[in-house]
């Protein structure tokens, strides 16, 4: 097992009181596996990533019964040990590549710098290696591009550079935090394919964080859907996409334009959307976090929070008292 997270809770001490951004989050990742993490803004996706990287701001309080990477306990690391781990064992790709590159240095300088942080090599070796990396991420004319400054690159090109920097020290886990959100749709696909390609070639584990179900459906082995800092549904990608049982996942899928069957509805009809707003994390609703927005909510849902329960026979877990019956749900809504 590569990454093991058990009961991770992240609380921010704010001026107006504590705010629990992530609550009892548990998940595992195997070597070479691709995990998709899906959810709305503010559901705790990015915060979880930062916790795995040890980059949470100081006012955040992290607690977990177990948090380990390759058997290494992450909870007891000091700042220096974190620095050794970051970039080497875990690397991260950011949402906006243009602002994640330092505008003062050329691409080549930044790549070399990244290489030198973790590896004992000479500058000329690092320069060669950076050229090699640029080729691997599919940048045309890599030699000339190494001299370019970030403002001279396109968004897709910049993201490729970010990927080159992230894989430079061969991390075991690559976290891609909305890697395609800031890019053109035409580039999105290329970048995702590149990530998938590199992940397979290097046998890395890839954690693909996104709010776009279309992105994860094609590129991941497993999916975990998050809502208000909790996992509401997790399982194999195929199962979750085609046989979703949690009303939230179901709502997300129904809101996707591809979900409309062309025969049944014309393209002028409104896309269904989930009503309401993400709950205020300072005043979490009692019971199921999703019940105020759920059209299937019953009294039980309003009183007591459901547990993540594994559906017998399938490797899928749902946090719902009344999981949607597959057949019924689909005929009803689609």
């Amino acid at each position, binding site marked *: 097992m590569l990454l093991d997270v058990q009961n991770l809770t992240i609380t921010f001490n704010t001026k107006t009181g504590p705010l629990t951004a992530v609550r009892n989050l548990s998940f595992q990742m195997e070597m070479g596996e691709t995990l998709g993490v899906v959810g709305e803004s503010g559901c705790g996706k990015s915060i979880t990533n930062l916790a795995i990287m040890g980059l949470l701001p100081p006012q955040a309080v992290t607690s977990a019964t177990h948090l380990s990477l390759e058997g290494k306990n992450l909870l007891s690391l000091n700042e220096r040990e974190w*620095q050794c781990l970051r*970039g080497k064992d875990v690397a991260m790709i950011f949402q906006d590549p243009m602002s*994640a590159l*330092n505008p003062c240095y050329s691409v080549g300088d930044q790549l070399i710098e990244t290489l030198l*942080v973790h590896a004992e090599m000479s500058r000329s070796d690092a320069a060669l290696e950076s050229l090699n990396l640029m080729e691997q991420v599919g940048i045309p004319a890599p030699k000339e591009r190494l001299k370019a400054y970030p403002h*001279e690159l396109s968004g897709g090109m910049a993201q490729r550079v970010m990927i080159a920097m992230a894989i430079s020290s061969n991390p075991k886990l690559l976290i891609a935090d909305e890697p395609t959100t800031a890019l053109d749709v035409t580039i999105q696909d290329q970048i995702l394919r590149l990530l998938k390609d590199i992940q397979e070639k290097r046998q890395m584990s890839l954690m693909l964080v996104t709010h776009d179900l279309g992105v994860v459906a094609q590129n991941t082995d497993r999916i975990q859907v998050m809502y208000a800092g909790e996992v509401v549904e997790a399982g194999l990608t195929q199962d979750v996409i085609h046989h979703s049982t949690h009303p939230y996942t179901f709502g997300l899928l129904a809101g996707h334009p591809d979900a409309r069957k062309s025969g049944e509805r014309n393209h002028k009809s409104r896309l269904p959307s989930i009503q309401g707003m993400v709950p205020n994390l300072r005043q979490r609703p009692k019971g199921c976090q999703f019940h105020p927005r759920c059209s299937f909510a019953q009294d039980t849902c309003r009183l007591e929070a459901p547990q993540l329960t594994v559906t017998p026979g399938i490797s899928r877990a749902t946090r719902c008292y009344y999981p949607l019956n597959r057949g019924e749900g689909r005929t009803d809504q689609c």
Partner: protein
Amino acid sequence: MELEQAKELTPQTPFQEFYQSFALNKGAVIGLAVLLFFIAVGISSPFLAPYDPTQLFDGAYRLPPFFSSGGNTKFLLGTDDVGRDILSRLIHGTALSLGVGIMIVVVSLVLGTIFGLLAGYFGKSVDRTVMRFTDIVMALPSTLLAIVVAAILGPGLVNAVWAVSIVAIPNYIRLVRALVMAEKKRAYVMAAQAYGAGHIRIMVSEILPNCTAPIIVQATLGLSEGILNAAALGFLGLGAQPPTPEWGTMLADARPFLENSPWMVTFPGLCILLVVLALNLVGDGLRDALDPRLKR
């Protein structure tokens, strides 16, 4: 035609962009020319000056400059009360005044940047300690503080440099701290952390290069202020000591003869004025060219 278009399409390097914007500012270009002239004079002062700055000429006391009656071309800008050639003293003083100004900027810039970086990057108690120190320094009138420091350290050129530097440090601390606090939140800093960069690497090689433009502007304006303050200390007798040909000291020496021999104060005063004005013009030009908010 096609070539021209291709030229327009290639993005300008930041330096090209800066140069274009700076060259459009006439005042700044003139200021730069004046400044370069003074620097050239300062560097070549041993060869340029007709006499030794401390050489006394018997009988040639308070001679007026050559263009007024009673002056002669042997002493182009006249002589002072003990018979020293004013032109030679001014030329030697150029190197001294500019050198003092640069030393003041270097000392205050380095210390101010270090403290500003620490305060802005670490925040919390480090920030509070540094900022309270700057508040205290800034609460005192700057010239008065410089006088106090110079009086404590004792008069002399090197001590004057320290005195003026200490007064100038808070400006740099405040500027750098504010810049660092803004840059710290940018995504590339988080990215650098994610690649395992340590605090010092992030501070020095990630954040600091992105703060250089306003620091350069502040340093240019600080240079003129430093020269002015050093001259003021010299005038008060706390800076360079006679017979050093420092401009402020020359002014102080000439003060009793203000009415009878006005050229003795005019020329050193004019030099200070020109250098400070040129520096301010260049500083403004740099600010206009480097600050994206002031771009047309």
